[in-house]
């Protein structure tokens, strides 16, 4: 397995150069429809899990697309690993709400799908295989390499989508409500799995969610987005070790604070 060695989650504040992503004063508008968000500045440190929390329609997905280089901001700048971002970075990866596996490819080829495009760092046969195997192993799908997506349950398909992102060994994983289509039990499993694998892979995460509990259970830092046009209204640091359910009182206090802020903002 070529996964990086297990490392403790790093919560200590890091110098600015440790930022994997830094966005300054972003705004975005759909032509003729209006401004979706404005004045958004944020940064994500290496290995940090950041939740972007907000109600539906507040512009989270749009912001994620701008931060991932899939859309250009009307104003402001996104920097990835200290360089301006004009298109999706090879060291980033995406997971969506739907697994969106390619139904004509076997599982192993789906997981390796992000590894052989012209603008990606090429990895030859053996290295590619090792990455795919490590990612499948990490999400608990080892042995299912030859299965087709139609043969996987919803939870398994979303694990495969996570493996596809991990195989790229991303510095930053963008996840847009990745678990909101799953049942509650599977969702809880996947949240724990996400924390586990991104720690092992030394990846940072930007997790878009409208679920306060998901943000509390997973994130090192929570950004609350709201308003019209959208802005980052507040942020909280969740300074608790994983698994978080071992600290119900602290979580409840934070939950109440976030709910209060939500009520205030609407």
């Amino acid at each position, binding site marked *: 397995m070529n996964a990086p060695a297990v490392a403790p989650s790093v919560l200590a504040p890091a110098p600015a150069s440790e930022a994997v992503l830094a966005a300054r004063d972003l705004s975005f508008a759909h032509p003729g429809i209006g401004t979706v968000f404005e004045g958004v500045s944020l940064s994500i440190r290496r290995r940090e899990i950041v939740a972007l929390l907000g109600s539906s329609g507040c512009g989270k997905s749009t912001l994620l697309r701008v931060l991932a280089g*899939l859309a250009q901001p009307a104003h402001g700048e996104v920097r990835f690993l200290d360089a301006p971002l004009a298109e999706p970075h090879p060291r980033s990866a*995406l997971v969506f709400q739907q697994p*969106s596996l390619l139904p004509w490819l076997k599982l192993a080829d789906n997981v390796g799908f992000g590894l052989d495009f012209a603008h990606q760092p090429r990895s030859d046969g053996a290295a590619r295989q090792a990455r795919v195997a490590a990612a499948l192993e990490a999400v608990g799908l080892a042995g299912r390499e030859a299965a087709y997506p139609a043969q996987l349950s919803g939870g398994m398909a979303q694990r495969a989508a996570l493996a596809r992102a991990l195989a790229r060994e991303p510095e930053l994983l963008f996840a847009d409500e990745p678990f909101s289509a799953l049942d509650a039990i599977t969702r809880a499993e996947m949240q724990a799995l996400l924390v586990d694998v991104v720690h092992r892979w030394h990846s940072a995460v930007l997790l878009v969610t409208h679920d306060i509990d998901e943000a509390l259970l997973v994130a090192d830092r929570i950004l609350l987005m709201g308003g019209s046009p959208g802005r980052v209204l507040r942020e909280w640091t969740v300074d608790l070790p994983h698994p978080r359910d071992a600290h119900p009182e602290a979580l409840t206090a934070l939950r109440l604070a976030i709910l209060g802020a939500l009520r205030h903002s609407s």
Partner: protein
Amino acid sequence: MVLNLLLPLAGLLAAALLWAAGAGWLAGVTPVASAFAPLATGEALLQLVHGRDLWEHVWLSLQRVAVGLLIALVLGVPLGVLTGLSAGFSRATTPLFQFARMISPLSWMPIAVMVLGVGDAPVYFLLAFAAVWPILLNTAAGVAQLDPNWLLLARSLSATRRETILRVILPGITAHILTGVRLAIGIIWIVLVPAEMLGVSAGLGYFILDARDRLAYSDLMAAILVIGALGYLLDHAARSLHRRWLHA
């Protein structure tokens, strides 16, 4: 299960009885019609199947089907992809395509022969012209139904246009293309026989006219049965291809 086999057989048997009754009645009016009867046709069919002639005509016709289908694919798939991807192109061409699609390909026949000369070329043209529309329209529908997240995924991998088309769009629309192919084969098979009645000297359409000129009416009926059976088999093959792709 047994019923699944018995009912179609009963239908075929009923049709054969009606056929025998009709031919018998017609023979009372014109004696020549007895050559159309099932028994006479069966005898002719046996002879034809054991000879070489029929198979040469069949082989030529099938080759024409393949060439016509190939041309239709080469033209229809790229045009369909373009139609599905570009709203402007789609709007510019939809009325034209809907218009051209409704013209019976056979009405082009005299012009095709005039421009392309006698021989195989006008037949290829007519077959391709008949088959291109279902392929084009199904391809365009397939592109329109692609999962937007697949395209987003391709963009997030900074895929080039070529990579996006070859690795996401084409495999993503293959099921739709195969549906188009199945419809196209049905249309080609129907257009083939009349198309082969002009300017060529072999093929099933030619064989029908030749049988008429030879007054070999039993051969003519036998050829009709062969055309039906081959069409059935072609459609069956296209269906199972479609099913196999979806299974994967």
